[in-house]
């Protein structure tokens, strides 16, 4: 069993046995310019074979590969509808391409949905059939579980909350228009941008490279960072409120690089304490940035074992 996470600049692989125990990992970055679907497939094929060799397992023992992609995925056809971060990724039949490359069944799924699946199977949402997993990293997205199943919507794009219209966004940035305004402000790059735009504070130069650093600074009491996070938390609070009203989930989980930082959650909780209506419990995901990988393993185990049982029965 292998779960693979396709990111904007590389792939992470996680191999597990049929009981879900970790066996090994691998990581590879794309060579410069080699991010076309074909070359990524070849890279993944190569990496999977290397990983299996390292684990001393023959390729025939590979039961299933689950790939997480940061994109909208047509689950019926196994097609990646569009992946904005990489070139040439439009309507890519990734499932078939990889199945051919790896000679084993492949599943392709949206990264946020898989992360939600991970939290559902192994993480913070084990006891909750209705929940929303909000991930904030580079982008912003949500995986929605209704009655223990992922809700994908009519055209597979449910949970694209980076496009929501909420008041605190339009108030703060009337200039940025249109597509994914919320995502641009709330995501990691948005936080960094606000930090830079805030200019030189009384604290002078502080080295900030990633959005998480801003969160750390806020936790340490830096007033500039706190102010920025306060604004972001206001946006996130609006998102949480709207999600709660539409879906009435039993639980809301925060994940992703920025989202899993406790400072942000604390601010959001503080803001929502005022308006008591309909907001359920908010928690941090337990699997951190590995949620999608483990979600992949969980998905693969479910369908993979069902497949094995089926073949076994046919053989009998």
């Amino acid at each position, binding site marked *: 069993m292998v779960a693979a996470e396709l990111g904007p600049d590389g792939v992470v692989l996680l191999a597990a046995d049929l009981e879900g125990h970790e066996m090994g990992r691998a990581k590879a970055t794309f060579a410069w310019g080699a991010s076309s679907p074909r070359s990524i497939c070849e890279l993944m094929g190569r990496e999977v074979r290397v990983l299996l060799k390292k684990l001393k397992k023959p390729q025939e023992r590979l039961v299933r590969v689950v790939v997480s992609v940061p994109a909208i995925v047509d689950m019926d056809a196994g097609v990646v509808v569009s992946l904005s971060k990489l070139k040439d990724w439009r309507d890519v039949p990734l499932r078939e391409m990889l199945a051919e490359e790896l000679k084993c069944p492949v599943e392709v799924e949206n990264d946020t949905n898989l992360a939600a699946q991970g939290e559902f199977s192994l993480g913070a949402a084990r006891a909750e059939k209705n929940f929303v997993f909000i991930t904030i990293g580079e982008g912003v997205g949500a995986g929605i579980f209704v009655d223990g199943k992922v809700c994908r919507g009519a055209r597979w794009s449910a949970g694209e909350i980076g496009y929501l219209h909420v008041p605190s966004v339009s108030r703060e940035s009337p200039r940025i228009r249109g597509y994914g305004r919320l995502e641009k402000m709330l995501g990691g790059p948005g936080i960094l941008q606000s930090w830079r735009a805030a200019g030189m504070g009384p604290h002078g130069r502080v080295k900030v490279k990633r959005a998480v650093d801003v969160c750390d600074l806020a936790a340490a009491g830096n007033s500039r960072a706190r102010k920025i996070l306060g604004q972001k938390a206001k946006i996130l609070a609006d998102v949480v409120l709207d999600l709660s009203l*539409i879906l009435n989930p039993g639980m809301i989980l925060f994940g992703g690089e920025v989202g899993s930082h406790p400072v942000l959650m604390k601010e959001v909780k503080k803001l929502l304490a005022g308006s008591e209506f309909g907001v359920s419990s908010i928690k941090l995901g337990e699997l951190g940035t590995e949620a999608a990988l483990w979600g992949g393993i969980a998905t693969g185990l479910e369908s993979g074992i069902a497949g094995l049982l089926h073949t076994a029965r046919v053989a009998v």
Partner: protein
Amino acid sequence: MRFGRFRRGIGQFGKQGEISDRGERSMAAARKNRPAEREVRNAASRLLDALRERDFKSLGEARTSCGLRKWDFDAALRLMQKKGLVEKGPMKAKGPLQPCLRIRGERGHVAAVDIGGTNLRVIVADLAGTILGKWSGSTVGVADPAKIVQLIEEGLRKISRQAGVPANSLQAVAAGAPGVTDSRNGVVLLTSYLGGWRDVPLGRMLEDRFAAPAVIENDVRLGAVGERWKGSARKMNDFAFLAIGTGIAAGIYANGELLRGPECAAGEVGYLVVPGTPEEGVREGMPGPLESVIGGEGIKSQWQKETQRLSGEALHDLSATEIFERATGGDERARGVLERSARILAHAIYNISVVLNCPLFILGGGVGMSAILKDATESVLADYSQPVRPQLRLSSLGPDAQLFGALRLALDEAEKRIGLRL
């Protein structure tokens, strides 16, 4: 003869198709000699649904139109005949063709109830879904749940007397209540109408009174059920029914399932915050931010503010629909109200559609049924770029959507009681 045998062979093995291995199928058949009970019941309720829609001239036509396998269809038909729910028509009648199957509606009756803030409506239908009578009364000033149940009984008795329905043939009751409703336990958790109910076990009260199973559901969710059965969203698996009246709420279907949420509060979208809704926090018992702007009262107060601003005087009271009509007549002030309402409604619809990837919205309720508002909202939505552009439709059932939804649930419950539905 050979040909006949061959045909039968295809009927049993080839066409049925699911299990290609002849040996396996015949072994399973020998063991059980009939399809699984679950499948039969499933097939029976599908056939029943189809028969309520239209007549069929032959059994084959009925079977193909339900998309059933012969095996399941025959078993379902036998089951329904055994329960006395369906009878076969004359096989070879001269003259115009007769329907080959008929639901014996007189086998039982169901009641559907819509409890509103001002009106109480009751309808009685037979198991074929034919409505036999309607009754409506007033709930103004009535706060006691027991009094409501008594009113329902009064209405039921009147209809039964007029339509000649025996009192003991009631198979199920379904009622919609205006508030947060726990349909699993049949409890109205919270409503701001009816003098403010809290934790009223309405389901049990109805069951005790009518000695039949009762279903309770939120009225807007019932609207969604109704529109999916007989209205603008027929057979749709993903859509939202948006009721905009004094308050705003949504009944949402996602992947063919009605969304309820663990606290039964899914779809309480009157409390949504979108650009343009008031900023201050919501106090308990007050309308939510969204409904305070584009609910019936919200639009009225928008209009009053607008007229006060532009002409220095508050004009006489107009309803939301009248204000929208004035807007198309060229009234600048009304135009402002319409544009603002459309913009805010578009934000709300857009947000729901982004979260759930919901492609269709049915607009209902006193304000929502306005075609002018719908057109204005559509033109705002056209400017947003998004994965799916939600389509807007007016409710075709209007105020009856809830009643039809309740009727549908009552029929489902009756089928369960008879033993057709799981």
